[in-house]
């Protein structure tokens, strides 16, 4: 139910977008987000529920380093 899958918005028509999930492209409702072509979104039950921010997309490894560094302070 709460499964959400990331994909890239490759086309927008009104409140419907086409999202590329890698192995499949699907129409997705965009009512809940403000996005542009090229943005990455999380998709749940056919709706984009959030835009994924690339700046904040720290890899787990980097986050782990930060967490460990904070602990040593």
């Amino acid at each position, binding site marked *: *139910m*709460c*499964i*959400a899958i990331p994909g890239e918005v490759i086309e927008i028509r009104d409140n419907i977008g086409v999202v590329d999930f890698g192995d499949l492209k699907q129409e997705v*409702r965009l*009512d*809940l*987000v*403000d996005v542009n072509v090229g943005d990455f979104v*999380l998709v*749940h*039950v*056919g*709706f984009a*529920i*959030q835009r*994924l*921010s690339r700046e*904040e*997309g*720290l890899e*787990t*490894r980097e*986050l*782990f380093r930060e*967490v*460990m560094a904070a*602990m040593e302070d």
Partner: protein
Amino acid sequence: MGIEREISEQLHALVDRPMNFMHVCGTHEASIARSGLRSVLPPMMKIVMGPGCPVCITPAGEIDAALELAADGVTIATYGDLMRVPGSQESLESCGGDVRIVQGIHKAVEIAGRVKNEVVFVSVGFETTAPTVAAAIRAEPPKNFSILSYHRLVPPAMEWLLTQGEAKLHGFILPGHVCTVSGYHEYERFPVPQVVAGFEPEEILLGFLMLAQIVRQGEVGVRNAYPKAVSRDGNVKAMALMHRVFEPCDVEWRGFPVIPASGLRLRDEFGEYDALRKFGIAIKKVTKKTACICDRVLRGIADPSDCPLFGRACTPARPIGPCMVSHEGACRIWHTYHVGGRK
């Protein structure tokens, strides 16, 4: 050395006392079970799944209301996971009515646009899902469309678990996709360590590590281990839409009593889309004697393998309780990934 190994080693160094953590998300449980994560955890750390499966916490009385409508000839549309959830007598799958599986509410609205019959969407889900429903209702669906709003909100259930204290928890992994939409500011009022985590095994492990850290530091509050999707405020637009269309209501959860302000009902303004009001039906309280311990699994005080029926009388092919039906249910997940063996 793999990142999982590295995190796991740090975790072993940190966990020097019993730490019982609960997560409230079927997707977390599936990832933990599939990757065998519990086997690399320190012996004093225990992870339980709470009421993190929207289908599982839907009480039998709510299923009965949908069955009542199906029996009256209404077309029912809902998610596949809900089809086999037992009501007091039967399930949507076995009822013989016109019941259709849809990907989301927009597909149910499309059906209503094509047929003359009344179409009712059985609408379950947490904060992740409720805004999608709000968006569809705001778009003024056809008059022959309505919903049974069985939505639930996560924070009131956490509050219940915390005040009740029966599960003896030291911290929570917060549901990543719920928080993607709702943000985590609402959880800051809980005086307990909490970490929002992603869904890859190493992301969940990192969540555990951060939780253990907060416990060791003797602190409380929320930290975010899933910043690529989750911010403190979440998807403000989606939450505003949800509050515009729905208002909180007191509602029972399967395995729990009535939890104040933990459900969502359509505001009066959208009452014509509320199937309960439209068809004049009420949710009845169902008490059924059964050996199924789903209620205790959902409250985090029993494992699926504690149930005498697990893997014997109750299997995914012949489920007895909702936790064995839904892909997000703890029993179903444990059975699929052979966790817990048989007792």
